[in-house]
């Protein structure tokens, strides 16, 4: 998956109107909540075969941090 594809997927999962960039501050978005975490956990599992946790997601400040969690799954 490319970075652009990841950001598009993320926008879809968070259902935001405007495009996201890698340095968007997630905590500033009302969509960034525990339900979004559940959606992302399923997404990481399905797309990368990775098990991420609430704690790991809470520590992510930006989409860039989420990309880092994919362990090279996003190129």
């Amino acid at each position, binding site marked *: 998956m490319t970075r652009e594809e990841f950001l598009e997927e993320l926008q879809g999962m968070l*259902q*935001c*109107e405007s495009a996201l960039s890698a340095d968007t501050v997630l905590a500033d978005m009302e*969509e960034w*909540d525990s*339900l979004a975490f559940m959606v992302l956990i399923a997404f990481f599992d399905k797309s990368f075969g990775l098990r991420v946790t609430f704690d790991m997601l809470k520590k992510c400040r930006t989409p860039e941090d989420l990309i880092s969690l994919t362990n090279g799954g996003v190129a």
Partner: protein
Amino acid sequence: MQDQDTGICSFDADSVVLVTGASSGIGAAIALKLNALGAAVIANGTNVPRLEAVRERARHPDRFHLAPRDLLADIDQLASWVKELCARHGKLSGLAIAAGKTETIPFAAYERARALALFDLLFHVPLEIAKAAVDRRNCLPGRMKIVFIAAAASIAPNKGQIVYGAAKAALACAARCMSKELAPRGICVNCISPGLVRTAMFDETVALLGEDFLNQEAARYPLGIGDPEDIAGLAAFLLSPAARWMTGQNLLVDGGRLG
């Protein structure tokens, strides 16, 4: 907002409600009621002439938009269909799912393939549409209300309602879960479970099971068998701002039969 003088509930001018199954029966009654109370309605059904006939009875036909589609035709495309409807008619303030059909299949005749087809229509289609409807890009913030028409069979199935009742019960359970997930966004999700109501589906059931069935059933309804309007009023209330503190319910409306 609420006008104390217009009765129990009314709708702001920017209200847009998608109603499935609006070409007949309970869906048509809900669509007409909402339209009369001031909401714009997107009326879905499979039969265009029948949808047009319903629109002819609308108080505000200019705010009664037709959206014909066979909901089973391409389930994976329902999300983009909802998105297109919102782009054309405005973001949604409500969703009423009334499309459905009944199948009388006793347990001895249960078949997985047939059951899956019924679950598609009664469970997966409503969920696909609702999921798209609550997408932040498709609905008005803090306004969205969802009503699923379940069935009394979700609580007290008759013989032959193994799959129908189970699919409706699954829908009611999903709605309850949705209500919890969506409450932080001010979205309310409720089910109405009607008993026997005089619709085309009712006629079909009576044709299949005979007049004896009808007479036996009618005897169990202290207030008689229902009419679509008996359901439409409650649906309109649940879709209106007046119902903002009510969510996660499955309301049995069955003329006193009580299961």
